């Protein structure tokens, strides 16, 4: 009745609040604070944190770096795309373009790499399956993250940012060897 009538008390902001609401607000606030603390804590104790390292770049510049890596460390070809096995700990590159992930990477288990990601054209979504790690790939930005593949096997990179009619054909590969 009163939700659509002016409050019964002219000075409604001075009416004391019931115990039940106060208790709930307190509980909810504590929970919000816990959720807040989890994020910085994970930066300290957790292993999955997105790096914030990124550089502005251009498709031409980024493409040149990719080609440099490809020309040095190609070890084979899959479906016409080079398979590249870069040295452990090095800067490795993968680019998204209409409609492929390039090149295929071959990595060593439990070793750290500096992975650079960017797009040559539109936005793409780097989605590593089956681990389900998802990153937004934005043209003009070189995103750098340290990755440590901790399981061996074949991984697929699918695109999960809509990028036009061939979006669903964008499948790339990362192999992790023992």
């Amino acid at each position: 009745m009163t939700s659509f009538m002016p409050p019964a008390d002219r000075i409604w902001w001075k009416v004391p609040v019931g115990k039940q609401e106060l208790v709930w607000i307190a509980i909810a606030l504590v929970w919000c604070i816990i959720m807040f603390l989890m994020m910085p804590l994970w930066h300290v104790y957790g292993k999955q944190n997105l790096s914030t390292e990124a550089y502005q770049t251009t498709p031409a510049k980024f493409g040149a770096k990719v080609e440099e890596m490809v020309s040095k460390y190609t070890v084979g070809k899959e479906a016409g795309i080079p398979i590249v096995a870069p040295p452990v700990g090095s800067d490795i590159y993968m680019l998204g373009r209409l409609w492929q992930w390039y090149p295929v990477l071959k990595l060593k288990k439990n070793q750290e790499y500096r992975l650079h990601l960017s797009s040559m054209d539109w936005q793409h979504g780097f989605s590593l399956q089956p681990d389900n790690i998802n990153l937004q790939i934005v043209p003009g930005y070189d995103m750098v993250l340290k990755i440590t593949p901790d399981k061996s096997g074949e991984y697929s990179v699918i695109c999960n940012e809509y990028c036009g009619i061939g979006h669903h054909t964008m499948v790339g590969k990362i192999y992790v060897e023992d």
Partner: protein
Amino acid sequence: MAEFRVCPDSGFYFHKSAESLMKVNAVVGVVALLIAGLLAIGVVLTRWQEVHWLPADTFYMVLTAHGINALLFWCIFFEMAILHFASSTLLRCRLATPRWGWAGFFLMLIGAVMNNVAVFSGKSSVMMTSYVPMQAEPHFYLGLILFAVGALIQVFVFFGTLVIAQQEKTYEGSVPLVTFGAITAAIIAVFTIASGAIILIPTYLWAVGYVSHIDAEMYRVIWWAMGHSSQQINVAAHVAVWYLIAGVLFGARPMSEKVSRFAFLLYIFFLQLASAHHILVDPGISAEWKIFNTSYAMYLAVLASMIHGLTVPGSIEVAQRGKGFTKGLFEWLRKAPWGNPVFSAMFISLVTFGFIGGITGVVMGTEQINLIIHNTIYVPAHFHATVVTGTTLTFMALTYLLIPVLFRKKMIFPWMAKLQPYVFGGGMTILILFMLGAGTLGVARRHWDMDFAGAAMAFEYPAIAYTLMAVGAIGGLLAIVGGIMYLTVTVGSLLFGKPLEPSAGILESFAGKPLQASAYDIEKPEKLMMAPKLEESEHSGGGFEAPGTFALAMLLLVTFVVYYFINWKYLASVWPLG
């Protein structure tokens, strides 16, 4: 000149101009919902991989149109009707500058049509987010700009009406809580539209060739300042409607005016920056900025929703207990009018919004957890729980209330209306839960083919992902049936329902048409008085007034905590990165 009528059933006063604006906004909104719902058939039958109905280009076009018509046009047109209701009707005040109101409405309409024309021409399948540098036709953006300008004008008519109400002293004391909620929605709308203008105008100029480059990351940040806060308009509006329905059906009074209003204010203060949760896995955004904006900004708004989640059902419980339903924790709820679609739709909305939409939203809005969720089908599952079972279902509840009150028609097929919230809410909940599951398995959103046909390299989802998508699709079809039931009842009632006396049919209330003497016979409504004070004895003296609601709230909290930590555990299992 007498320009007001009073609804004999509800006691609400309607000013002629406000009434016609409410009607046209609501009707056009429902038409947009109809379009979106029809398109949803194409979306679900394509995402159900065993059916895989539409070809890729049609699918992306249909999905673009589905998102825009549903999220923008349906919700915002309907919200304009709510704003006029919350100002003119609730405050018993004439509408400020009706002509501007109509101008705003027509601009919105032209914009909506223009945008749809661009999308259905097939050359603007860019999704509602229209991320640059993918480009749509210029009139795609222009349509959205006109729509936004029109909405802004109507919002200012709303503010103008509030000013008139205050100057002419049409009410005593402070504005009612529902109006207060509408004011928050309107303030957020101004911010939203401003952000929209900042990003869409340059994008339009880029599409016509005057601007050569738009930074893709900058676009995302500003676009989401609009995209996110527009969701906050929806939430503020539907929470205001929850309070309204609790008041109308149960005579419930807010447990505490102060707490509820404070919670609405939190929406304004803390949600704007929460657009950060859309760019948690974007390049180069600092961790501090993300943590600040997802916690400080988002959690205090989450807190606000948790408060409303207690006080809305709590006020119903107190009212029901006052009527003698005092047995145990839940007699008040068992004996609630579950056969009344206004109540059942509102309550299903409250529960699904809180338990599914709220919890999943906070989880995926956590800085690191977003890594395992971003852009999977989990995301649309989450926002169908907020914007479909939340906002849309609430607006459906309000429509059932307004058919007799605003349109003065008797509802046709009451049995269908009675079932509708269960079919729509139930089907949608199935769709949501199963898409949430598929999303955790990595199924992508906005994706035509789970089989990746034509890809140079193969990838297969686990078989269970297909099953989840199929069951979800069946739920989706059920929801579409629920949507058709809603449209049958509402449109059918407007066209064929028996007019109620005094009648003010949709045409009679339009400007220019002769007034029906029987309808608009009031020159000045009675002043809106403050709600009567509670008898001292009605205060329950310090204890818990609504223990059943408190138990439900604790259940929500436990679910929340458990699900939250499950997701951290899942995150811990993926490749270390930093």
